[in-house]
């Protein structure tokens, strides 16, 4: 595999609705931004790019089949090669990794990944129905298909098994909303308190409206290149910032579509097949897990995402990461729900299974120097969702995973101030970050590692 560099990105302002433009023109906003940030003109980039990958989740939302080719066409990329990827909420993460493969394999030297979703064309409750059609339509959808309900069931189990509290989940909402206060691309820029989160309307017990991301219209775009692609772009006039940002690891995992089919494996199987390297290497952690299993915990059940754990283990191995909390400077993860951010802390090995709740209020995942109005006992170690995540930025599904990549590129380039007009969210000396994209009830999960070259 060849080295793959993430050279530029762009994001449209995520909004409740963008009726002012068709989806192709919204994608072009993000695409043009990525090109302009390279300092290259449109025709020169069109000559330099080898092809693309398109990302969008739902044909129902767009009521348009083959929307990918319409974007390719509008961007002036025909007749270059392209294809659409789809994998629910992880569509953007899958798209980035498919573009990565195009470069890493030698098939392309410059590849652009673009994605979008236009969710405003239907009422929110119809949107919920479309999203719920991404659950088994024989067995899950007809029972009351509603993704917030599915996630709420997962977290009641998490609460029962591990003592996780609604206040711990609400702290995630407070963190991500306050981070987004400094992100001009975010759809929601509000300062909330734990009380605000708990007093907002109940959607699916115990998740309130402020525990859940919103539906959005938006687009994002990322340009990837090989070493030869760098030379080609720079030969065409591009100014690619140094040090370079490289995608050093990718990982993916899957799980059963029906939550009810998830296995409940024993301790030995968990330690053999799913435990992280550092979990296996710690006597204390092995004892901790043995105690959990002795009390009835089984893995992954419905409280954990083995697809996320599988993706993390794969990506960490690829990138040579042994202790993610210490070796990652930030993470942009798929917080469609406060509960799923908390669950994902565990899947990504930031803490042990069962400790996501206490980790959420420890302070380790917060940005340094920001006032969250919370008593946080520990110093920030690895800010999670410094951008504000899905909960505050919005979740135009096909764009979301690419949005995470764009924010990660900007963090690693040290260019947050340039793009946000404010450096509050710049993670100081960010050298390595992870992005995490998540579908369904944990059916597809991707994790990609981006690093600034020394």
């Amino acid at each position: 595999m060849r080295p793959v560099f993430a050279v530029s990105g762009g994001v449209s302002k995520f909004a409740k609705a963008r009726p002012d433009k068709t989806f192709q023109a919204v994608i072009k906003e993000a695409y043009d931004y990525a090109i302009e940030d390279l300092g290259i003109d449109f025709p020169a980039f069109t000559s330099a790019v080898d092809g693309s990958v398109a990302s969008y989740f739902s044909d129902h939302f767009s009521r348009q089949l083959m929307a990918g080719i319409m974007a390719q066409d509008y961007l002036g990329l025909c007749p270059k090669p392209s294809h659409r990827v789809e994998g629910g909420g992880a569509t953007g993460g899958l798209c980035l990794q498919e573009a990565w493969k195009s470069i890493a394999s030698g098939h392309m030297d410059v590849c652009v990944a673009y994605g979008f979703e236009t969710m405003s064309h239907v009422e929110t409750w119809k949107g919920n129905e479309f999203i719920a059609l991404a659950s088994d339509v024989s067995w899950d959808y007809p029972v009351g298909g509603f993704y917030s309900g599915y996630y709420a069931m997962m977290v009641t189990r998490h609460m029962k098994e591990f003592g996780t509290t609604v206040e711990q989940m609400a702290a995630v909402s407070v963190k991500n909303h306050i981070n987004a206060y400094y992100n001009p691309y975010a759809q929601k820029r509000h300062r909330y308190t734990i009380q605000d989160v708990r007093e907002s309307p109940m959607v699916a017990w115990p998740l309130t409206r402020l525990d859940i991301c919103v539906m959005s219209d938006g687009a994002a775009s990322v340009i990837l290149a090989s070493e030869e692609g760098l030379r080609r772009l720079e030969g065409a006039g591009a100014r690619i910032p140094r040090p370079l940002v490289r995608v050093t690891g990718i990982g993916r995992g899957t799980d059963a579509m029906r939550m009810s089919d998830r296995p409940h494996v024993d301790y030995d199987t968990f330690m053999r097949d799913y435990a992280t390297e550092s979990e296996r290497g710690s006597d204390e952690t092995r004892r901790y897990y043995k105690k959990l299993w002795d009390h009835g915990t089984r893995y992954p059940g419905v409280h954990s995402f083995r697809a996320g754990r599988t993706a993390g283990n794969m990506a960490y191995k690829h990138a040579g990461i042994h202790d993610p909390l210490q070796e990652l400077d930030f993470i942009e993860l798929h917080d469609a729900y406060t509960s799923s951010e908390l669950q994902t802390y565990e899947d990504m090995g930031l803490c042990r299974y069962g400790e996501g709740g206490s980790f959420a209020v420890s302070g380790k995942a917060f940005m340094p120097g920001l006032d969250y109005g919370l008593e946080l006992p520990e110093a920030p170690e690895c800010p999670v969702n410094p951008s504000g995540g899905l909960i505050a930025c919005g979740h135009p599904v096909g764009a979301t995973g690419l949005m995470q990549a764009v924010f990660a590129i900007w963090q690693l380039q040290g260019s947050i101030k340039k793009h946000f007009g404010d450096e509050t969210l710049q993670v100081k000396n960010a050298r390595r970050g992870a992005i995490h994209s998540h579908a369904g009830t944990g059916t597809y999960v991707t994790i990609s590692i981006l690093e600034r070259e020394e």
Partner: protein
Amino acid sequence: MSKIPDKRPETLGGYVIHGVPFPIDTDPEALAFLKRMSPIQIEQKYQVTYLHSYGQDSPWFAAASNRRLLATRHAESGYTYATPRGHDMYSGEETVWIDITDRPARVHAFTVCHFGSEEFLPETPFVLALIEFENVNTLFLTRLVGVDPDQATLDWIGMQVEPRFLRNSKLKPTDVYFAPSA
């Protein structure tokens, strides 16, 4: 306690209008002004009837309409699926049908949906639950009745429940639902 709403709910529907404002003359100034106009949005209906087959899972629905709850099992390993699968996920072999109507069952996880998809909005609040059965390896998603949706508590997890069946089958998984054991 949720705050009292301070906004009226929005809907997509609006007035039907006849006649769309447009410059009387298409001189260059008027044409340039078109770039500053707000977009036109129209309503489009999208309705379709599908013929959905339950395929190899069909006997489950026939059983539910006859007040029996089926599951599938891999004969050799005994691995049992509360939500039926035609093939075992570990051996790849075909499963066999078994009857679990009278198996002891408990709530494994639950939620109360106060909001939802358009199709189910009129039924809110309703309780969704994942049910675990004795000696069955996987769970079953269902509606739970006989509990107060306004008094949700984690104590419901582990509660013994039993299946109930609709008298007039709809040939949906909701033909069976669960209630606290008598």
